[in-house]
């Protein structure tokens, strides 16, 4: 597979892995790289760019030891422990539904045409904590263009692997397995929406959704479905796993929104992992460039 960085990043700003791994030395370098890699900062106003410059990457250890991946257990440290022997090869991804070119791909063939790039995104969990993560992946829109959805395709539905033998959480009816997520087609086509295969410049650890996951940085973390085996182009809005579990608490859109509380807790603030005081949660997690996708929509109703 071809790994090419985004053309606008000078090679001098690419951080070598030794620096990634060395936290203390890394902190200083991180701010500059983060600002360069966050696409939002390129387009957005200076104030926002300045704010993003200060964003410090969440340490690799925390990104990979504190996970919500219920297929491997509900406690935050369960996935790292229970996903150790998860087999991600061979792996196939089925593209189905209203597309000109439906097919089931071997993972390597699926990834082969795409240029991987590194992007630093904020991740805001619906549980009111957040991280800053350097992902590696490619825009979902590149895949969509490749498989050519027909005019009937209005939504994209994603499905996680269903394999209770390997995924102990699936032996219990915590959610209705397999995990399902979805995006409106225009959300899926947005340049920020990423299909990720790695983080911190290396392959995704199993507990982070290896070998292929979604990253939608302006939505709560649960939208960013992990270990994807199926991508379906559909006409009607998919019912996601969390909508099925608690429809009054988790909506289809799940946009990060400090003004719309979760029925049980406030979404005004969040705790950035590694910080003591809570910080204000930003509309669309600070990615205001997506606002136009929702113009005229009542985000209280479509939460």
């Amino acid at each position, binding site marked *: 597979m071809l790994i090419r960085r985004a053309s606008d990043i000078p090679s001098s700003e690419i951080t070598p892995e030794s620096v990634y791994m060395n936290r203390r030395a890394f902190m200083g370098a991180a701010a500059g790289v983060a600002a360069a890699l966050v696409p939002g900062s390129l387009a957005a106003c200076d104030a926002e760019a300045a704010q993003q410059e200060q964003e410090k990457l969440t340490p690799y250890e925390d990104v990979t030891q504190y996970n919500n991946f219920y297929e491997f257990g509900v406690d935050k440290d369960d996935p790292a422990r229970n996903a150790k022997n998860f087999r991600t090869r061979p792996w196939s991804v089925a593209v189905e539904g209203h597309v000109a070119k439906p097919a089931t791909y071997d993972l390597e063939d699926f990834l082969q045409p795409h240029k991987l790039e590194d992007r630093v995104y904020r991740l805001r969990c619906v549980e009111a904590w957040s991280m800053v993560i350097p992902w590696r992946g490619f825009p979902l829109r590149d895949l969509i263009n490749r498989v050519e959805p027909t005019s009937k395709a209005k939504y994209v539905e994603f499905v996680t692997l269903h394999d209770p033998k390997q995924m102990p959480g699936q032996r219990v009816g915590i959610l209705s397995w397999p995990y399902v997520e979805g995006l409106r087609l225009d959300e899926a086509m947005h340049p920020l929406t990423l299909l990720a295969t790695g983080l911190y410049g290396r392959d995704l650890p199993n507990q982070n959704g290896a070998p292929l996951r979604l990253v939608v940085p302006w939505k709560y973390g649960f939208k960013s479905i992990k270990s994807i085996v199926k991508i379906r182009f559909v006409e009607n809005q998919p019912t996601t796993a969390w909508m099925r579990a608690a429809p009054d608490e988790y909506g289809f859109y799940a946009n990060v929104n400090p003004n719309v509380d979760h029925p*049980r807790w406030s979404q005004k*603030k969040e705790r950035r992992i590694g910080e003591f005081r809570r910080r204000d949660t930003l509309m669309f997690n600070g990615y205001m460039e997506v606002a136009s996708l929702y113009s005229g929509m009542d985000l209280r109703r479509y939460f």
Partner: protein
Amino acid sequence: MQSRTVRNLALLKTALWAACLFPLARLVYAAFAGRLGANPIEAVTLATGKAALVILLITLLVTPVRRITGWNRLIQVRRPLGLFAFFYALLHFLTYVVLDLFFDFAAVGEDILKRPYITVGFAAFVLLIPLAITSTRGWIRRLGKRWQTLHTLVYVSSVLAIVHFFWKTKADFREVQVHAAILAALLLVRIPGWYRRLRPVSVRR
């Protein structure tokens, strides 16, 4: 025989103190060893809340066990257990106010008023305060029969604690169900006793 049960009781009390201090010791150790994980405040909140609930349930176990075994001196472990439950509930509450919200009393107030799981959790904690205060010998003497009545609040508090746990659970209800079942059993075994006490005096000779 007498001295042996006394010795057993002393041993039991020592074990009780050790067991009840264990969750705190583990937290302190983890904090200094840097082993509280990526979200230490959440870890402390969960651990103290869990300790409070478990010790509260163990407190409710004392009376049924005493009835069944006839070992009346066992009553002596009930007060320390109850106070330990209160101690962890207090730590749980302080973790939330000090560490989590850092004295943002407006946010605390809003949570208590607007978030049902926090409302009931707070109520469960508040109800334990008079029980802790009146747990001394002096208060027991002063309140007389009313002390018993006052301390039935422990049942209300433990039910609220379980509701708090239920309402904060996201998807996996197994753990809270186990605790709820244990509380239900502990309340059920008391029903015959309550029933007897409510019957008219004529039943007793």
